[in-house]
């Protein structure tokens, strides 16, 4: 089951990943090869098998609702590409 360059473009858009025309072709080829390898799983009968999302026996780990020290605003914003007035600055997303 091959992945077409158009499907690669669709998946890249879902992932907010810009890709070039050359990458569309190359990734379509490489990802198709990998997905073909995955087809072997479809032959397994797993009707009665429960899925494993994680291996620990832990459920709903809760902590006490207590105030603890945290990073300062300055420390949090220190790595931001753009900050303004104590906020992360982003491009406008609402029309005027």
């Amino acid at each position: 089951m091959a992945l077409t360059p158009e499907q690669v473009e669709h998946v890249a858009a879902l992932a907010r990943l810009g890709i070039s025309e050359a990458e569309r072709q190359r990734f379509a080829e490489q990802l198709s090869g990998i997905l073909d390898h995955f087809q072997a799983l479809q032959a397994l009968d797993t009707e009665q098998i429960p899925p494993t999302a994680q291996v620990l026996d832990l459920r709903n780990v809760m902590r006490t609702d207590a105030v603890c020290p945290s990073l300062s605003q300055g420390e949090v914003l220190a790595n931001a590409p753009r900050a303004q007035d104590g906020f992360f600055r982003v491009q406008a997303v609402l029309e005027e």
Partner: protein
Amino acid sequence: MPDLTSLTVPEARDLLVRREISAGELVRAVLDRIAGAEPLVQAFLTVTADEAVAGAAAADAALAAGGGDPQATPALTGIPVALKDLFCTRGVQTTSGSQILKGFVPPFDATVVARLRAAGAVLVGKTNMDEFAMGSSTENSGYQQTHNPWDLSRVPGGSSGGSAAAVAAGECLLSLGTDTGGSIRQPASLCGVTGLKPTYGRVSRYGMIAFASSLDQAGPFSAGVEGTAMALQAIAGHDPLDATSAPLPVPDYRAALAGGIKGLRVGVPREYFVAGTEPDVDRLVRAAIAQLAALGAEVGEVSLPSTDHGLATYYIIAPAEVSSNLSRYNGIKYGLAAPDEPDMIRAMEVTRERGFGDEAKRRIMLGTYALSSGYYDAYYLKAQKVRTLIRQDFDRAFERFDVLATPTSPTTAFKLGAKTQDPLAMYLSDVCTLPVNMAGLPGISVPCGFDAAGLPVGLQLIGKAFDESTLLRAAYTYEQATDVHTRRPPLPVGARASA
């Protein structure tokens, strides 16, 4: 005076406590070694020389005050360590091997880093890795190519290739890596050092840049099992900052090494000697298993029939988790950004196009595809069910056996560039290690010999969940019966520094 950079962690500890060497001498020897070896090996992305010298001075003050009493100072006081560049280090750049995090300076320490500091360890630097820990050769680094100290034309393995190569080259005595599908054990095997992946939940993941959250686990590299046990002791245990860290007591791992393996039940899974296993690897691993039998273990064959499906299962589950974890790199809170793009979505796309390398892009797309509408049941849910089958294989095997023994990787170190154009061939390097992550079990690679070309081969031992004690005892008993772990690569950097 011994060659300080060839010391094991327990040897250095004894000399430091007895004040036969100082932490300052040890860290200077290591920094000299880094200066000599780095042009060849390129294991480090950052060397923290000033911090290391200051840390060694503090360690010497503590050791002097301790007056030769080993109880007076923490177990790693003055030991030079290196960290894979995905452990957040307060004030020291942390990139996860990606250009998208170039210049990121964390405002906090990962829990394992804080615990190593509390144990007295001295940080000498941050090591190279495959981008976001995705790879088996460290060639996916966004920064540089690390070379195998045993043969500079070959890869160190990956993704923790820098941490493995740094220990092999004597550029630190101890390092930390992470292992999601083999990223500690496989480079340990290819670089001829000891590498441990603890049980999922044994070591906190807080402050460790996430790859696949249900599989990732941190663990140590060193030139011997006793140092590995000392490092695990320092980093293991429950952490309230990681909800998936297990609230279980931590045994005394160093004390657990003694006692031998008489009567230990060792299973040999026949599916792990895969087609494509190099003849020397097959021969040396089988010889190591015969050695375990000679040391008193009861060795028997076992079948893990779902092993064949491990690779496909892993390469659905891990990329699915990647596509989620890597969505945070969008140019807003940290890292690379495209501030001149007027549209926010386009800015994210451009940031991610420029910042991620090919393997990161491939896995983001694989994972996004496997989770997308119409394909979720066929890929992601199916893989989660097969993950259950893989776990059940191990559960059945551990009803009859205490430890399983396998090759760590089907091959020794391969040539740089040999697999970079064929992702599937690269993925096959981890065929013996990744089922262990899917079951959350502990695994260790110990050196068990050298192939005809002089390249190291690793024996993988797999243990029951949270039974690192038995795993370490088996590995230690084997190691002490051989001299393989004492061999060091003949790097052409002149005489090693000694005090």
